[in-house]
């Protein structure tokens, strides 16, 4: 029987290729290789496809380039940081890997330009380089790519900030060289009517260290998909995230950590709070977290852990938490996962109130305490303070 799927003349459906694990999914730079997703597809079943403004099916508004600005601190050593706008087809694009879903491939295919930020070998830039991507507003769709390359032996901190409003899809390529170190803070602080889908392809070299932090507070629909792979032993990836969703917001953080070589370490910790307003007419507050960790047969000595914790502050919010551990060898240092979705612990509130602390303040203390485990690990003080302030601001509108 010949069906549309198997007849090569009618449908070169590359991405229906069977794969054995989540690390081997079909990838391509060409959007035409991906069929338009339907709601049943594992990767698309949580997001509301009808609300992503045609990013998945080609009906998006006019494609424009991304509005991106890079600020290099004056303390950076001369020639340490290279900032350049790239044209599609530049040799520096696409080295870490190709997009794994249609929207990321669409961004790749349609982007008019890309941004490159490189750190030279053996240099250290201690203050953050700030990349700001601003939405292009209504009536257009911005597509872009950002390449962050930290060459062998270099150390860098990058803040990737998303601001403003609009519809934006991008690929972020991150290459950390041998013995190099990158701290990246991705801050999605869009206005609350922005749609942003972002694919991140991350490649770590020998003994490379990545400290990856994602804060998702602003936007209508924000989906960030970091896919991490190790090319040599000794890599160390820590992926931290915080999010706070209100009514009318949908945040998805979908990670892949692919251990294909020995003796690498990964630690994933994402914490989120959701609050809904029953009287509001907007869609309910929703988040989705997927943590795919793959330990291939050759990855002896892997040490990995992932955890996602969600706090539902009110009725009418929904959090999905899906950890997946695929383990193909038993010769590992450790592997674990945990995911929780829960309400306020009444006993904790009671304990604080029984010491005289009013209920609203007790809840604030507990929620700040909940996030502090992640926020305290972000090594840039100004960003820590900013995020703590954001949590406080969100809580000021909690209905106690």
């Amino acid at each position: 029987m010949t069906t549309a799927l198997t007849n090569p003349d009618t449908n070169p459906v590359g991405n229906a290729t069977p794969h054995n694990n989540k690390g081997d999914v079909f990838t391509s730079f060409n959007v035409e290789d991906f069929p338009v997703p339907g709601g049943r597809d594992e990767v698309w079943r949580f997001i509301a496809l009808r609300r992503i403004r045609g990013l998945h099916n080609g009906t998006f508004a006019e494609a424009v380039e991304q509005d991106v600005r890079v600020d290099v601190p004056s303390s950076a050593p001369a020639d340490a940081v290279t900032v350049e706008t790239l044209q599609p087809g530049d040799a520096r694009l696409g080295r870490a890997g190709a997009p794994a879903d249609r929207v990321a491939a669409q961004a790749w295919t349609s982007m008019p330009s890309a941004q490159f930020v490189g750190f030279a070998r053996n240099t250290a830039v201690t203050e953050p380089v700030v990349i700001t991507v601003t939405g292009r507003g209504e009536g257009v769709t911005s597509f872009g790519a950002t390449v962050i390359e930290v060459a062998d032996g270099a150390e860098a901190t990058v803040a990737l900030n998303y601001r403003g409003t609009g519809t934006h899809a991008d690929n972020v390529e991150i290459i950390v060289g041998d013995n190099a170190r990158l701290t990246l803070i991705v801050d999605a602080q869009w206005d609350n009517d922005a749609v942003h889908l972002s694919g991140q392809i991350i490649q770590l070299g020998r003994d490379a260290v990545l400290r990856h932090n994602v804060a998702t507070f602003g936007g209508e629909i924000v989906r960030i998909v970091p896919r991490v792979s190790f090319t040599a032993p000794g890599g160390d990836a820590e992926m931290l995230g915080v999010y706070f969703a209100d009514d009318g917001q949908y945040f998805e953080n979908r990670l892949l950590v692919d251990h294909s070589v020995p003796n690498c370490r990964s630690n994933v910790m994402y914490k989120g709070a959701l609050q809904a307003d029953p009287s509001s007419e907007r869609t309910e507050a929703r988040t989705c977290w997927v943590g795919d960790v793959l330990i291939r047969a050759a990855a002896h000595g892997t040490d990995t852990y992932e955890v996602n914790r969600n706090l539902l502050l009110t009725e009418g919010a929904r959090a999905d938490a899906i950890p997946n551990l695929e383990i193909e060898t038993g010769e590992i240092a450790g592997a674990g996962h945990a995911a929780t979705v829960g309400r306020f612990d009444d006993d904790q509130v009671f304990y604080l109130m029984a010491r005289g602390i009013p209920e609203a303040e007790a809840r604030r203390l507990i929620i700040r305490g909940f996030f502090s485990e992640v926020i305290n690990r972000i090594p840039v003080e100004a960003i820590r303070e900013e995020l703590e302030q954001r949590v406080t601001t969100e809580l000021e509108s909690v209905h106690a």
Partner: protein
Amino acid sequence: MSTLEIKNLHAQVLPADETAEPKPILKGVNLTVNSGETHAIMGPNGSGKSTLAYTIAGHPRYEITEGEVLLDGVNVLDMEVDERARAGLFLAMQYPTEIPGVSSSNFMRSAVSAVRGEAPKLREWVKELNGARENLQIDKSFGERSVNEGFSGGEKKRHEVLQLGLLKPKFAVMDETDSGLDVDALRIVSEGINRYQEETDGGIVLITHYKRILNYVQPDFVHVFADGRIVTTGGAELADQLEADGYDQFVR
């Protein structure tokens, strides 16, 4: 001079399973405590001693079905949990709750500020806190640790008594503060309780299963609690009798 009057208190516990019936636990408790007095409450497991403590404090799982608890004539059962604490009640819990991410120092300062009505001046506060901490042999590092997280049983109880000393309530209900403590910890905790009472003339309700702590914290009255109410009251020697003969003769 203050008075805590528990009058004909009846209470039931709401089960975790919302479809099940509430279970009556307190069946008419009557007790009057004056400032400076120490009342020990002893009784067999399941008699309702902890329920009494939680009910006075206002835990949401317990529902009053009859009776009053008057603090200087005002019924605290009409107040929210935090109001009762600010009015001068303190409950030292048998199983103190862990609160990850909230540092003990931050928590103590917030509690003291709430109960005193204003935040204490920083330098004086640090001195006061360190003094109280050292008296209870609590390590300096406790301040940065999350409230009760990773604390041993003895550390948790000493931490409760630290709060007692800093919040200086009019009346303290200590729920099995002695359980799980070794001899040294028991002595330190008892000294802390006595010190609180000397400094504030506070009234103490000491719920305990074992007589041991009563050697250190002398009771003025010993009450036997059984089946949801006080069945017998005596002096300190009643505790010795209970230790020798058990609860059977007081419980049918």
